[in-house]
């Protein structure tokens, strides 16, 4: 092989994965913006059932108070939440039935070997993206992060959100027990949202590390140009 050889491209992401990915991204963006708008009405967090301006707070956020943003904020929040829930439900269903979850998201046996994991951690620390065959599957750390977000944080976001609903909790008062009260659920909703934003920041940073144009194009068109294997550096 010479360096002139055109880079091999492979079909990396199926259409429904790409579609649900971008719909989720749009809904999540709208939820963050509208969530902040709602939070500004009371930028204080509490533990338990009750909490108010003059009640003792667990955490006072350094944000300006603004009572005028909850109208559009709540409307946009619940529109985006419905899109996220329906889109996410469809994604989970297709992932389970179609094998996406098992095949692409659960770590492969070899990825769980301590030696492999150690090398992945070292590669991440050096911001060295996977090449060749390894670029055709998600790495183990990436899989852990995706599984935590898909099966952990997003479901917890929806459940803590619903625990703030007087209608839903009338039907399922167990939600209060699960999260320790309405204000605890509100606090956890904020904490999980921060973790999701942290995931987003790392996720986008990793796209830049791995080649922003190539990876973004792959998530839009489905086709990924495979980074050629490079010889192992002598110190590896």
């Amino acid at each position: 092989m010479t360096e002139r050889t055109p880079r091999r491209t492979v079909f990396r992401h199926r259409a429904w994965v790409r579609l649900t990915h971008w719909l989720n991204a749009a809904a999540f963006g709208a939820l963050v913006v509208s969530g902040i708008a709602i939070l500004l009405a009371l930028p204080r967090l509490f533990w338990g059932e009750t909490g108010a301006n003059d009640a003792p707070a667990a955490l006072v956020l350094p944000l300006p108070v603004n009572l005028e943003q909850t109208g559009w904020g709540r409307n946009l929040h619940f529109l985006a939440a419905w899109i996220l829930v329906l889109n996410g439900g469809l994604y989970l269903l297709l992932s389970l039935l179609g094998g996406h979850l098992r095949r692409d998201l659960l770590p492969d046996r070899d990825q769980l070997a301590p030696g492999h994991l150690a090398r992945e951690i070292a590669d991440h620390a050096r911001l060295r993206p996977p090449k060749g065959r390894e670029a055709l599957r998600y790495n183990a750390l990436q899989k852990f992060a995706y599984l935590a977000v898909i099966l952990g944080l997003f479901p917890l976001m929806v459940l803590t959100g619903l625990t703030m609903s007087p209608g839903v909790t009338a039907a399922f008062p167990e939600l209060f027990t699960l999260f320790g009260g309405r204000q605890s659920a509100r606090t956890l909703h904020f904490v999980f949202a921060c973790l999701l934003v942290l995931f987003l920041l790392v996720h986008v940073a990793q796209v830049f590390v791995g080649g922003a144009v190539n990876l973004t194009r792959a998530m839009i068109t489905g086709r990924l140009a495979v980074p050629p294997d490079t010889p192992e550096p002598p110190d590896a």
Partner: protein
Amino acid sequence: MRDLSRRRLLTGSGAVLGAGLLGGCDAPALSHLASPYDWSNGLTFAVQRWLLARQPLVREFDRSRISAVFPTINTTDPDDPAYKRSRDVAFADWTLPVTGLVERPGAFSLADLKAMPARTQVTLHSCEQGWSAIGEWTGVPLAHLLAHVGLKPQARFIVIRSVDGWWDSYDLFDALHPQTILAYGMNGGSLPVKHGAPVRLRVERQLGYKSLKYIAAIEAVERVDGYGKGRGSMVAELGFPWYAGI
């Protein structure tokens, strides 16, 4: 247990449930599906009505859980001459007209309401602003008052007006719920002025803005299109959904 509750649904509260479901499509939450927000808020309404079809009660707390801090927002002392006069005589001259699609329209004094069967409930009040507080409310179930005046079969919504100009409407699904009460007492005493004296509404399965303070008039109607801008409530005209279950 399952059979019992099913039978109860079919007989006792069958009329209520039927009215709730039949009224569904007429409800302001589903009658104006113009913007995307109308669709998402309508979906929330429809799903919650389905989840609440068996008319569960919200949690009730022990008195020891009553909050030391219970915020008051919007109107806290109506600037209305007739209201102030009435307030100065401990609402002795206050009456609540109940009109519209009822067999026996009437006006009820505070004493009349207090003579009716009372319900006391310690519940969590949730505000759209994010705060929540626990309070004890004592009052007459709206269902009792409506049965007293005799709701006509074609009545589908209850329009409630407040001294300060606020108004809202409720379908029978919520209006006839056992915890929907006209409260004249709070935390063991009379309802304070800042909390809506002499009488406020409690609609426990929705956000606080549906629990109108300073109740001035009650009217049973078949449709709410003709009220305000036809969106079912004053707050709906300000961008807050008519149905506030989330």
